[in-house]
């Protein structure tokens, strides 16, 4: 599992670095690289939605001094509302296909200055586990919701790629079934099996998120995130505690971690259109 996550991590970092177009990669860091001291026509057409710079300059002298200031300037000019994106997680589906539990989930994310990204994640968690050793069966199917916000920490806010950290508050209210084989009293004798059907539970948790997304084509992006999850509370029950909380995962320890691999689509509802030169 760790190798899989590591592979995804490396693949995505390479994607992030490799999928950028020359104009996309015009970040503040990259422009400090030595440039050929030749006169050329420099067209910076993806820096700004509003301001297009087209000039004939000496690249080394003017370009390297101008761009960082321009980024800051254009960042201030960047409209607050930068549109919505919807995304769907495929890793949860893969988990459900190859293990006892998984999720079907999607998200709606708002972009504010392409820096602050409030997000609502809705999903449906499923678990149907029969432990091989103890023969205890656990089953739950229930929806969940997560609310939170991401911070895109890439310096160039005009590109379509994002790398972010964020936080989520998760909530799910559900009913689970747990049943098991007969318990035999070794001293007094007697045998009975148990069946806790429809046990109600409400759970809350917090998540710390780190992830990125890269533009693949047009309005389609792909990205991943890894999440550290802290279980806050669950309803108390004498008989059992939930083994799997929809949207959180298994509760075998106080905290857990998981990931997502997202297919992301930009929605252009009300988003300011780029001016063309």
């Amino acid at each position, binding site marked *: 599992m760790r190798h899989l996550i590591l592979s995804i991590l490396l693949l995505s970092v390479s994607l992030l670095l490799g999928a950028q177009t020359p104009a996309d990669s015009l970040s503040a860091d990259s422009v400090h690289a030595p440039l050929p001291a030749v006169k050329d026509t420099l067209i910076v057409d993806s820096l700004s939605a509003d301001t297009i710079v087209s000039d004939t300059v000496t690249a080394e002298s003017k370009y390297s001094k101008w761009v960082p200031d321009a980024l800051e300037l254009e960042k201030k000019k960047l409209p607050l509302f930068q549109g919505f994106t919807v995304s769907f997680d495929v890793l949860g589906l893969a988990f459900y296909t190859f293990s006892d539990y998984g999720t079907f989930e999607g998200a709606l994310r708002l972009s504010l200055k392409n820096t602050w990204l409030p997000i609502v994640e809705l999903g449906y968690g499923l678990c149907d586990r029969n432990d091989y050793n103890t023969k205890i069966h*656990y089953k739950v199917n229930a929806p969940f919701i997560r609310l939170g916000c991401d911070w895109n920490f890439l310096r160039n806010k005009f590109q379509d790629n994002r790398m972010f950290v964020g936080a989520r508050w998760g909530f799910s209210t559900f009913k689970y079934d747990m049943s098991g084989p007969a318990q035999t009293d070794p*001293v*007094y004798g007697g045998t*009975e099996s148990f069946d806790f059907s429809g046990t109600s539970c409400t759970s809350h948790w917090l998540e710390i998120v780190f992830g990125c997304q890269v533009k693949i084509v047009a309005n389609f992006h792909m990205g991943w995130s*890894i999440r550290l999850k802290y279980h806050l509370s669950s309803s108390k029950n004498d008989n*059992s505690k939930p*083994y799997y909380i929809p949207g959180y995962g298994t509760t075998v320890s106080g905290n857990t*971690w998981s990931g997502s691999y997202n297919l992301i689509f930009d929605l252009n509802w009300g988003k300011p259109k780029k001016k063309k030169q």
Partner: protein
Amino acid sequence: MKQFLLLSSVLTMLVAVACSTASCPMDTVVTCNYSFYNADGEQSPLYDTLTVTIRKDIQAYVYRKTGKNDTILRQRSTALIDSGYTESVESLSIDTILLNRKVNATSMSIPMSYYRSVDTLVFHYGKILLPDTVWLFHTGYTHVETPECGSYRFHNLSEIRTTDRCIDRATIADPSVNYQGNINLNIYFNTNNE
């Protein structure tokens, strides 16, 4: 790039902290734990030997044949039937020892019945001829921590009654009987038995 490296490092540490195994309890024996006191309420050993027994009903196979002693077995024997014995299934009450001649005991741990509402314990002493009887009223319930850890039978104590040959009084210290090892019952013995 520096931000990325810093965040990657922090994230790696967080993930490392998050990795852990199933937290199954180390001690999974569910017992009712007793602590012994003298009549003045001071923790004190019982200056005597203590044996605790219970009487329980078992199902037994009884084989009878004219001119032979009865044979009682826990499991069925076809060999005896072939030898001409008659077989009957009967319910018998037998004594089972849960604590055997413990000397100067300050505490003890006794398992509880899974499905009975009252456990009847008999305390036998070395110096006192007649035993004490302890009736323990409780409700049992199944507890599952995680499916990997299996199921356990926990109990809630509701009442304790005793005879008073050596026992002065008994109280419930903690009604929750589980595998955490809390003291559940305090037994106060008469001090004149020292």
